[in-house]
C-alpha cells in the first residue's frame, strides 16, 4: 500500500510539472500554487517513507509500463525508504523556497522550470524505488537530463553552457559505467531485475569488476575525486534551489546506488573492496575542504564543501564494507549508521546553505565574496537561519553535523578489532584525516559566514539588500529545524535507521544506556553523548554570562564602531577578505593547487592584485584525455572527404567485401 502511495505521489509530481506549462510565464501560478503544492507532496512522501521505515517491511509492485515484456519492477524496502524520506523532507523546504525564488526574466520561463524541477524530483524518487536495471537506468537518465536543463537555466551565458556540458559529459561517463555494472551483475542469466542479480553467483573477479564499475559510476554522480570536476562548475551555474536539490538530494541517490550495489546486490562484500572507497573518500575529504578554503565565489565554495561531505560519506561506506566483509556486523552497522546519518544531515544543512546563498544572490546580485559583507543587519532572517546551517556543517554540538561525525569517529576507533593487522595500522591515520577535514570545514564555514554576513558591507549597493519573502522564510526555517531536530534527537533517528542496518548488514546498533536522551552506541565502552544536556549547559552558561554582564558588570549596552582599535578611520575595504582568509591554507597546502598570481609593481598608482587558483587535475588528467579523444575524432574525420563519389565508393567496396565474405562461407 505504501508503495502504491509513493508511485501516486511521484505521478502527481509529474502532473504538477506539466501543469506549469499551462501558463509558462505566470509566476503567480507556478510560484504561489504549483511549487507549494509540490512541497506538500514532498511532505507526504516523507511521511509514507517514514511509515515504511518504522514498519521495516518490504513491498513489491510490477507496473506494466515500458517496453513489451519489460514491465517496471518497483520495490520499497528500508534502504529505499530512508532515502525517500530524505528526498521528501528536504524537497519540502526547497520547493517552498523555490516558489518564492523563481521569477520571470531569468532565462528559462518559470512554467518550464516547474516542469523540469518536478520531473527531476519524480525521477529521483523513481531511482530510489526501481527494482530492475531498466527502470533504474531510465530514471537515472531522466534525472541527469532534467537536472542538466535546470543547470542551464540561464543558457544565454556561455560559461553556464560550458558548465552544463561538463556536467552532461560526466553524467554520461558515469551512466555508461553503471550500464556495464548491471551487465556484469546479471551474471549470465540475462534477467535484469534486482532480484535476479541478488541470486546470480558471480566469481570473485566479476564481482570485483562490478564493484569497481559501480564505484566509478556512482562516484562520478556523487563527486568523488577525481570525478568531481562537474560539481564546482554546475553548482554555481544552477539557480540556488536547483543547486540545493542537486547537492542535497541528487548526490545522495548516488550514495543510495552505491549501498544498493555494494551491500545488497553483490551479497556479502569482500572486505578489501572497502579500501577503495575508503582511500578515495579520505582523499576527497581533504581535497574538497582545501579547495573550499581558497574559493572566492560563495556557491563554488559550497560545491567544494559538498565534495568534502561526499568524501565523508564514501569513507563511511568503505568502513562499512570492510567491517561487513570481515564479519563484524555490529561495527558495520555503526559505520553504516554514521554514513546514513551524514547523508540525512548533509541533505538538510547543505540545502539550507545553498538556499541562503540564493537569497543573498537575489538581494545583492553578487556571488563574489569580495563584494559582500555585513548582511546580517539587512537580512536578519537569512543570516540567522544560515548561521544554524553553518554551525551544523562545521560539526558543532548540539547540531546534527556533530552527531554523524562523532559516530563516524567511533566507527574508526574500533577498527582495532579487524583481523587484518596491516589495515589495523593504517586506518587510524584515516581517522586523523577525517578529523583534519572536519577542523578545516569549520575554518571554511567561518570564512563563508564571516565574509558574507559579518563585518561591514564592502559595497555601497549592499545597503539596498532586502530580506527574503515569506515562502522563502518558511523553506529556510524548515531546513534549519531539520538540522536542529536531527541534532537533538539522535537516539530516535538511530532507532528508525535500525531497519536499514538490519537489512544491509544484518545487525542493529545496540543502545548501551537506558536513558532516552543519552546516545551510547558502543557496547562495553563508556562513550556517550547527550545533546540535550549539552544544549542545556550551553544555554545556562550563555544565560549566566548575560545575567552577569547585565547585573554585576557595567549594566548597559554600549554601541561603538567595531574593530577600529581605537584609532578610527578604517574603511570596509580594510576588512579581511575571502582571499586573505584563505591565504594560510593556500601557502600550507601549495602542492594541491595550481596558482596564478598577478602582483602589482611597488610604484603602481592603481595597484591590482589578482589570484586564480585552479585544480591541477585539469592539466594532469583531463587535458590529456580530451586531447586523446580529439585526436581520435580527427583521425576518424579524415575519411570524410566531402565528395559524393568517395562516399559511394565506400558503400560499393563495403558491399563487395560483404558479398565476397558471404560467398566464401
Amino acid at each position, binding site marked *: 500500500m505504501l508503495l502504491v502511495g509513493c508511485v501516486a505521489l511521484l505521478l502527481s509530481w509529474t502532473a504538477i510539472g506539466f501543469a506549469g506549462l499551462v501558463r509558462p510565464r505566470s509566476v503567480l501560478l507556478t510560484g504561489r500554487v504549483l511549487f507549494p503544492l509540490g512541497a506538500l507532496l514532498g511532505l507526504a512522501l516523507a511521511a509514507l517513507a517514514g511509515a515504511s521505515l518504522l514498519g521495516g517491511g518490504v513491498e513489491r509492485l510490477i507496473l506494466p509500463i515500458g517496453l513489451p515484456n519489460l514491465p517496471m519492477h518497483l520495490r520499497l524496502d528500508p534502504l529505499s525508504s530512508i532515502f525517500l524520506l530524505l528526498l521528501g523532507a528536504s524537497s519540502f523546504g526547497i520547493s517552498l523556497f523555490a516558489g518564492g525564488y523563481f521569477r520571470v526574466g531569468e532565462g528559462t520561463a518559470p512554467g518550464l522550470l516547474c516542469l523540469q524541477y518536478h520531473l527531476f524530483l519524480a525521477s529521483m524518487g523513481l531511482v530510489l524505488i526501481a527494482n530492475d536495471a531498466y527502470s533504474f537506468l531510465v530514471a537515472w537518465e531522466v534525472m541527469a537530463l532534467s537536472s542538466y536543463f535546470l543547470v542551464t537555466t540561464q543558457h544565454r551565458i556561455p560559461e553556464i553552457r560550458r558548465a552544463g556540458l561538463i556536467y552532461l559529459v560526466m553524467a554520461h561517463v558515469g551512466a555508461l559505467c553503471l550500464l556495464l555494472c548491471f551487465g556484469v551483475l546479471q551474471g549470465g542469466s540475462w534477467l535484469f531485475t534486482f532480484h535476479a542479480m541478488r541470486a546470480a553467483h558471480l566469481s570473485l573477479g566479476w564481482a570485483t569488476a562490478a564493484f569497481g564499475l559501480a564505484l566509478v559510476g556512482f562516484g562520478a554522480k556523487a563527486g568523488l575525486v577525481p570525478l568531481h570536476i562537474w560539481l564546482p562548475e554546475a553548482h554555481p551555474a544552477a539557480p540556488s534551489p536547483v543547486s540545493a536539490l542537486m547537492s542535497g538530494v541528487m548526490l545522495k541517490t548516488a550514495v543510495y546506488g552505491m549501498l544498493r550495489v555494494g551491500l545488497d546486490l553483490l551479497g556479502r562484500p569482500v572486505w578489501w573492496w572497502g579500501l577503495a572507497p575508503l582511500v578515495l573518500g579520505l582523499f576527497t575529504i581533504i581535497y574538497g575542504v582545501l579547495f573550499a578554503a581558497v574559493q572566492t565565489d560563495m556557491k563554488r565554495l559550497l560545491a567544494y564543501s559538498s565534495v568534502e561531505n561526499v568524501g565523508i560519506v564514501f569513507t563511511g561506506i568503505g568502513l562499512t564494507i570492510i567491517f561487513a566483509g570481515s564479519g563484524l556486523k555490529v561495527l558495520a552497522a555503526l559505520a553504516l549508521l554514521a554514513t546514513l546519518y551524514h547523508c540525512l544531515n548533509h541533505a538538510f544543512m547543505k540545502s539550507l546553505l545553498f538556499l541562503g546563498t540564493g537569497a543573498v544572490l537575489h538581494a545583492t546580485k553578487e556571488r563574489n565574496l569580495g563584494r559582500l559583507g555585513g548582511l546580517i543587519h539587512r537580512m536578519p532572517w537569512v543570516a540567522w537561519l544560515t548561521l544554524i546551517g553553518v554551525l551544523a556543517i562545521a560539526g558543532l554540538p548540539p547540531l546534527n553535523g556533530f552527531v554523524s561525525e562523532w559516530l563516524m569517529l567511533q566507527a574508526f576507533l574500533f577498527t582495532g578489532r579487524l583481523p587484518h593487522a596491516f589495515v589495523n595500522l593504517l586506518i587510524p591515520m584515516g581517522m586523523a584525516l577525517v578529523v583534519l577535514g572536519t577542523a578545516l570545514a569549520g575554518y571554511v564555514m567561518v570564512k563563508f559566514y564571516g565574509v558574507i554576513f559579518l563585518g561591514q558591507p564592502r559595497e555601497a549597493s549592499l545597503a539596498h539588500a532586502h530580506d527574503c519573502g515569506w515562502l522563502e522564510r518558511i523553506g529556510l526555517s524548515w531546513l534549519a529545524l531539520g538540522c536542529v531536530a536531527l541534532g537533538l534527537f539522535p537516539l530516535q533517528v538511530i532507532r528508525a535507521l535500525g531497519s536499514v542496518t538490519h537489512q544491509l548488514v544484518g545487525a542493529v546498533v545496540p543502545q548501551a544506556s537506558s536513558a532516552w536522551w543519552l546516545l551510547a552506541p558502543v557496547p562495553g565502552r563508556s562513550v556517550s553523548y547527550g545533546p540535550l544536556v549539552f544544549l542545556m549547559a550551553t544555554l545556562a552558561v550563555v544565560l549566566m554570562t548575560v545575567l552577569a554582564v547585565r547585573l554585576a558588570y557595567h549594566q548597559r549596552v554600549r554601541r561603538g564602531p567595531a574593530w577600529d582599535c581605537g584609532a578610527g578611520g578604517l574603511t570596509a575595504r580594510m576588512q579581511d577578505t575571502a582571499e586573505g582568509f584563505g591565504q594560510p591554507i593556500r601557502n600550507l597546502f601549495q602542492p594541491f593547487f595550481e596558482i596564478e598570481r598577478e602582483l602589482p609593481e611597488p610604484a603602481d598608482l592603481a595597484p591590482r592584485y589578482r589570484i586564480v587558483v585552479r585544480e591541477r587535475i585539469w592539466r594532469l588528467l583531463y587535458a590529456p584525455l580530451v586531447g586523446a579523444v580529439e585526436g581520435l575524432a*580527427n583521425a576518424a*574525420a579524415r575519411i*570524410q*572527404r*566531402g*565528395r*559524393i*563519389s568517395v562516399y*559511394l*565508393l565506400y*558503400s*560499393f567496396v563495403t*558491399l*563487395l567485401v560483404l*558479398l*565476397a565474405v*558471404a*560467398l566464401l562461407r
Partner: protein
Amino acid sequence: MAHLPLGQQLLDSCAALLLLLSFAMLSQRRVVTLVNLYAVQGAVLAAATLLLAWRTGETHLYISAALTVGLKVVLLPWLLYRLIRKLEVYRDTEPLFNVSGTMLVGLVIVVFAFSLAQPITRLASTATRSSIGIAIAVVLLSFLMMITRRKAISQVMGFLSMENGVLFGAMSASYGMPMVVELGIALDVLVAVLVLGVFFFQIRERFDSLDLHHLESLKERE
C-alpha cells in the same frame, strides 16, 4: 542445352540485352542518350516480365509489366527529358576515371557477380535462374556508374538503372516480388526522381552548375 524452349531462349536474350545496356550506360557520356538507354532498358525489362508471365501464367507479372512500361518507358524518361531541357545539361563532363578503365573494372565485376550468383542459382527453382547473375551484375554496374560520374543527373540515372537490376533479380529468383512491394518501389522511384529534380534546381541555383564537386565546399573545415 541445345534444345531450350523458345520462351527460355527469348528470356535469356533479354537478360543479355540488359547487361549490354548496362555497359552502354557505363560508357555513355551524353545525358540524353543515357535517358534513351534507360528507356530501352525499361522496355527490355517489361518484355522479359511479359515473357515470364506468359510462360508461368502468374497474373501479377502482367500488372508488373504494365507498371514497368508506364513508369520506366514513358513517365520517368519524359520527366528526365524535361529536366534536362530546363537545366540545359546535355553532356556530362569527363568522368572521374577514363572509360576504358571503367569498362575493365566492369568486366571484373561481372565475373564476380556470376560467381556470387552460383549458390543462389543452385537453390532457386525458377525457370529464369540462369539470369540471376546478370541481375546482380546490372546492380553492381549501376553502382559503379554512380561512382564514376560527376553530374548529379547521371548519378540519378545510375540509381534508376540499379532499381531495374533489383527488379530483374527479384523476377529471376522468385518470379517477382509481392505486388505491394513492387507498387511501393515504383512509387518510391517516382517520388525520388521528383524530389531530386527539385534538388537539382536548388543545387544549380546555389552553385550555378550541377557539377557535384562544388558540394565539397560544404564539408566542415578543420
